[in-house]
């Protein structure tokens, strides 16, 4: 399976990373090299095994459905690049 520059651009767009045409040209062979190397996994017979879901057996705990650390609006917003009136702000998304 070979990744071309169009695929690199598609994947970068899915990952929300802006890349230039030159970046895509450079990345295509790099990614192909890595993907070619990991494709050796195809050799392994995995027909008798389930995919791993938990590395150490553990139970998912439930807790009471109550607010534990609420009312921290200012702390939550403290590192925001832009915040106004107690909200995160972003460029306009609805016309």
């Amino acid at each position, binding site marked *: 399976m070979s*990744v071309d520059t169009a*695929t*690199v651009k598609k*994947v*970068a*767009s*899915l*990952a*929300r*990373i*802006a*890349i230039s045409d030159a970046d895509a040209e450079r*990345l295509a062979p*790099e*990614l192909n*090299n*890595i*993907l070619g*190397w*990991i*494709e*050796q*996994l*195809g050799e*392994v017979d*995995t027909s008798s*095994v*389930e*995919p*791993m*879901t*938990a*590395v*150490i057996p*553990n139970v*998912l*705990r439930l*807790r009471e459905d109550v607010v534990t650390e609420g009312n*921290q609006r200012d*702390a*939550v917003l*403290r*590192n*925001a*690049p*832009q915040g106004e009136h107690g909200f*995160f702000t*972003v*460029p*306009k*998304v609805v016309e």
Partner: protein
Amino acid sequence: MSDITDLGVASLRDGIRTGKFSAREVADAFIVKVSKGKALNAFIVETPEHALAAAKAADEAIARGEPLKPLSGVPLGMKDLFATKGVQTTAASHILEGFEPVYESTVSQKLWDAGAGMLGKLNMDQFAMGSSNETSYFGNVISPWRRGGGDNAPLAPGGSSGGSSAAIAARLVPGATGTDTGGSIRQPAAFTGISGIKPTYGRCSRYGVVAFASSLDQAGPMARDVRDCAILLENMAGFDPRDSTSLQLPVPKWEEHLSGDLSGKKIGIPAEYLIDGTPTEIAKLWEAGIAWVKDAGAEVVEVSLPHTKYALPAYYIIAPAEASSNLARYDGVRYGLRELAEGQNLQEMYAATRAAGFGDEVKRRILIGTYVLSAGFYDAYYTQAQKVRALIARDFENVFSMCDLLLTPTAPSAAFALGEKSADPIAMYLNDVFTVPSSLAGLPAMSVPGGLDAGGLPLGLQIIGRPLDEQGVLNAGLAIEQRAGFAARPEAWW
């Protein structure tokens, strides 16, 4: 006493306790070392005030005759992956530059609650992605070690916990936190002649640890010897309701139960870890390690872990897949960098922010992860990798019915020069060939220094244990430490 900074965690703790020196003297001595060690670039932020406050608390407790805490007055380095309240936490990335968490990670909080102080935030590979500390936005960490014979080429301190390893080896800190996703505690420990343990997955809380690959990430201590690692781990581990994968188990008294007597233990030597191209010095060190554990009373058995060669390719699907998901949070909205040119819309802001904020290796892994998780490829890559991961874990389960511990080299080479492998991602990834399999299986594993290569650079031995058997791992580490007699240290050039 010649120099306080020659002492490790246990000696500092005990010396403060018995009044041999004050905690203030300890803090001052290390603060001076940190300030003189800038050429190593091991720190992103220095926090002498934090270390001094912990020292003051310790000295005041002594003056009042109050009982001391387990680490009262011991100053440590904190890998920059741990969120520290009010102190910049970046994971060595541009996208988090200036980020000052409003909360403390559980592991760092536990250390402060135990009386330890912080000398600073340690440099690392960006988002813990790297094996040489060359991916940090804040510049390479330089190993304090140099090859013999007048070769002054700057060497890699290993990665990703390269600031931690360099700072400990150079005696800037007596101990530090590290994190290990595929070898990021053990490989840098091996490269710099120190010890480090990755505990069983779930022992240390991941709360407040900047996430890379959540099913693999584990915090652990790095220090100059096995006892110091045991002390630090006891004060880092423990159940945390804030981490859904935290193990609800008591923390054993690892230090108290340390013993280098391996009588009755069976130690497995996995045939698959003898790979083509391993330097003969590493094979010889492995032989020496086998002789040392036998001398300590262990029986040595040959074992087989047949899926070992598939661990690295499986890791390089699973870890980037998890990273592509975890790093989606860096969007220029809630924290960190925002890139927004006049007239750009929200989607363009995301893409521009992430393009400017992530380094090349991070982008490479996000793209690989996004690709293997994308429609049409998910089963062929990700599901297959998780199945292979199950087979790798089963290999370990099988051998642990025949032996108690495994002994292997930690890394396939000694430290390499900066720049030597950075052009070839796969050559860099191969550094973790011996450490990744136990990460995929969530097992406790540690590296201890075993000796030097012909160039005078440290080489490490790795011990891998059953789930939750940190004690067995530490004890075997101690047995090797007692016999290896590793006393080499880098000569100060910085």
